[in-house]
């Protein structure tokens, strides 16, 4: 062993000690795993899981309307308020309804595109299309919403274009229609990518077999391809659905006065009304809906497909 390596290793005494320590650690895998996991584990358990637990528990507390303090008395008042108040029911249904509409729209837009990209486009074009799908995904979310706010505005480019061809103008700015368009735009890449992968995975021999058995293009698409890419569609829908359910920025920026989402109520309950228990209770609605949705998705085989 060279002198330099010796010195670099910290002298013979230290080196022996270090050797012994690393040998001990190498033999006891569990010890190393424990040491390595202690920091990230502590972060997630002591901060994140603790926070989620507090959120869940506080949904069953209430705020004293007189003092504004949180009363640690177990009750279901918050949930009752949500179920009994027509406004909150409307908001919950609007959120879920638009999330469903966005999911269906994205699936309809994405399936033909993904089919073309995965099975018809030449290799070079595939790479280009892939980058094009990723660009919006990695452009700031806020920037994309803002762009649509300008596009759909009364004096925006949509109405300008309609005016140029003599079709007058539309007022879709600040409405549920605007939210539907913007959400569909925002989450489209999340729908395209899993469907693209699913189309790629269909073996060419399946299509040949279908053609040999006399099926025409459309029949093959409907009876062979579509069932095989359905899990990809379901996987994509998890994103489009979940991301829409939990949003409140897009409703604030492109929705109208009466376009509140669950997220908006949660946000104002925390920020303005200072009613954390009620916000927590309302936040469990998207959580519950997503839980059920994931169970169904699992049934449909969305996860084996990926």
């Amino acid at each position, binding site marked *: 062993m060279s002198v330099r390596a010796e010195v670099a290793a910290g002298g013979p005494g230290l080196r022996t000690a*270090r050797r012994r320590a690393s*040998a001990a650690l190498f033999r006891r895998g*569990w010890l*190393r*795993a424990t040491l*390595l996991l202690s*920091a*990230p584990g502590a*972060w997630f358990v002591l*901060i994140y*899981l603790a*926070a989620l637990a507090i*959120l869940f528990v506080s949904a069953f507390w209430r705020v004293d309307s007189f003092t504004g303090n949180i009363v640690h008395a177990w009750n279901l008042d918050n949930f009752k308020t949500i179920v009994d108040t027509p406004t909150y029911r409307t908001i919950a249904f609007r959120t879920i309804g638009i999330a469903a509409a966005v999911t269906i729209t994205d699936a309809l837009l994405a399936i*033909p*595109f993904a089919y*073309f990209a995965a099975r*018809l486009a030449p290799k070079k074009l595939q790479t280009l*299309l*892939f980058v*094009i799908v990723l*660009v*919006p995904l*990695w*452009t*700031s979310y*806020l920037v*994309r919403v*803002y*762009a649509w*706010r300008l*596009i759909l505005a009364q*004096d925006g*480019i949509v109405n*300008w274009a309609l005016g140029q061809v003599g079709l007058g103008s539309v007022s879709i700015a600040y409405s549920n229609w605007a939210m539907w368009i913007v959400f569909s*735009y925002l989450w489209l890449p999340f729908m395209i*990518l*899993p469907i*693209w*992968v699913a189309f790629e995975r269909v073996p060419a021999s399946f299509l040949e077999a279908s053609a040999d058995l006399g099926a025409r*293009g459309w029949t093959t698409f409907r009876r062979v391809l579509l069932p095989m890419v359905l899990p990809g569609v379901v*996987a994509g829908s998890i*994103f489009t659905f979940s*991301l829409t359910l*939990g*949003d*409140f*920025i897009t409703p604030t920026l492109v929705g109208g006065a009466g376009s509140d989402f669950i*997220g908006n109520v949660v946000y104002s309950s*925390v920020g303005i009304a200072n009613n*954390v228990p009620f916000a*927590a209770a309302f*936040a469990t609605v*998207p*959580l519950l809906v*997503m839980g059920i949705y994931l*169970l169904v*998705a*699992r049934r449909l085989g*969305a996860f084996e497909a*990926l």
Partner: protein
Amino acid sequence: MGGTARLSRVALGVWAALIVLFLLFPILLIVLYAFNPSNVQSWPLHGLSTKWFSSTFHNQQMRDALWLSVRAALISTTIAVLLGSMAAFAVHRFRFFGREAVSFLLVLPLALPGIITGMALNSFFVFGSVNFSLTTIVIGHATFCIVTVYNNALARLRRTQSSLVEASMDLGGDGWQTFRYVTLPVIATALVAGGLLAFALSFDEVIVTTFTAGAQNTLPLWIFGNIRLGQNLPQVNVVVLFVIVLTIVPVWFAQRLTRDTGVLRPGAGGAARVAVAAEGGAQA
């Protein structure tokens, strides 16, 4: 027969072209708006100019928000690289009880709607009487950034032959030397890529941040506030251009650094997220 097949090919090609237009158009348009000389944001623009650039960069509120965002992103990224790589090493090298639970837990902050994570951390800080500060923002960001580093490091480790490590040990390297001269060089680019993605994610985040920032303004919160109130829009346009550049550049580099494991390929990041979210749904 042949005729209809060609027709459907052409139709699909046209459809794909329309989708490409739909995906790119808003981004190209918003870039143009940064050069809008007017302070009214209507179409068509009356010429192009860079007249708002200077006043934007001298806007003290914007500079404070930018500086806060940069600090938050740098600290969150550092924490994410340290904790994410530690978790990846542990999960890669050892089989232990609850190994699947680790992956699930790390991806949870991204899989759950942002509002849940934000609300949870908010009530955590409120009940713990923690004042909102840079620290609370960093805690929120680091929590969802860890998984990007973890995924990248783990993907690289799985592709690295374990014989490399064994050879180093056989040649007399101790644990530290093996780590320093063999493992670290192998995963370095994966860590850098994960770190760049974490930076981009943190720099852009707005939903969780609204719940953990209190009265402070990060750059996205500054943009959000101004758009909502219709204030300083010419300056917002310039900042938006700046943000596009600052988030796309790190992602571009991350993509180049991880061509082998392809973090950004379809099925890699997204699919892992879905799969893990699925396990959680089944357990819930």
